[in-house]
């Protein structure tokens, strides 16, 4: 089950905690993987640790030319693209009344607009091949909201709406479009929390622990697999029960 041999995947934000986990898991299931991010040295390091069946393609998702070049470059390297994982994302938190235009714009651009453009570039080849998987990494706060994150939650909710509409358009072509909504996941970012902060976060998580990148990666493997082919337009919540939707 969940064999991805001969599938070709592009993972954005592969230099980050969750993206690396997803890239490793897809690769472990047999996929060819193109890793993307802005930090080339980190991309090379990760590629070296994965071994064969790996390519890297740096791209800055706040630059539209760079975004538009990413999918064609990945397709050329791998000979096509079967699985697109839109995982890269940023936060620029501020309370609503102090939120600056550039904090709003940059989060919408990197988290939502780049996703739209990458999907648009990828869909053509998927339509021709009559198969494809598009997976967006959204967030629980895109559904529940979170103070200080109007920009981030708007972008993440936008990903969900966009995925549903696109899923309806291309379902007949055997292309699925889904999102995964992580709750609190242990990454470099959460390592910096002190015990008190951690404790207060955990009171809202029935499972009593932070999620791991592997928890998210497993969901991505499922949605990417042939076995997940009847699931489309969905948001898979992986959050230890902190929000039951």
């Amino acid at each position, binding site marked *: 089950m969940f064999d991805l041999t001969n599938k070709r995947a592009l993972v954005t934000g592969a230099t980050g905690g969750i993206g690396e986990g997803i890239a490793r898991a897809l690769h472990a299931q047999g996929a060819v993987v193109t890793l993307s991010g802005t930090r080339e040295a980190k991309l090379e390091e990760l590629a070296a640790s994965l071994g064969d069946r790996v390519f890297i393609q740096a791209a800055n998702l706040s630059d539209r030319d760079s975004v538009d070049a990413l999918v064609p470059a990945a397709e050329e390297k791998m000979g096509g693209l079967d699985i697109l994982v839109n995982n890269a994302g940023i936060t620029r938190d501020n309370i609503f009344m102090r939120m600056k235009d550039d904090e709003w714009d940059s989060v919408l651009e990197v988290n939502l607009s780049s996703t739209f453009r990458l999907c648009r570039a990828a869909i053509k080849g998927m339509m*021709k091949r009559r198969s494809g998987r598009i997976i967006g990494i959204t967030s629980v706060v895109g559904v529940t909201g979170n103070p200080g994150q109007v920009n981030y939650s708007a972008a993440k909710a936008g990903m969900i709406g966009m995925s549903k509409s696109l899923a309806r358009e291309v379902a*007949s072509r055997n292309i699925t479009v889904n999102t995964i909504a992580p709750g609190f996941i242990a990454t470099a970012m959460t390592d910096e929390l002190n015990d008190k902060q951690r404790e207060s976060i955990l009171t809202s998580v029935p499972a009593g622990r932070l999620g791991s990148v592997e928890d998210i990666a497993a969901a991505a493997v499922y949605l990417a697999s042939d076995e997940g082919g009847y699931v489309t337009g969905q948001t898979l919540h992986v959050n230890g029960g902190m929000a039951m939707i």
Partner: protein
Amino acid sequence: MSNVAEQVKKIVVEHLGVEADKVTESASFIDDLGADSLDTVELVMAFEEAFGVEIPDDAAETIQTVGDAVSFIESKAN
């Protein structure tokens, strides 16, 4: 029938799974041949590939019948 017209017809028959004699020059992809909007996008992609031409989005929107496709492709080839 020109070479282009014959090839266009063949692509349409294959792609939409319709009877060849329905694919007349005036047949509209959507109204007469049962295509949906996604089919029309795919037909344009198939024409681009078969004839090695680029059909920009604004031109693609004007291609509604088999005849429209043939004349666009012929105009590009000349």
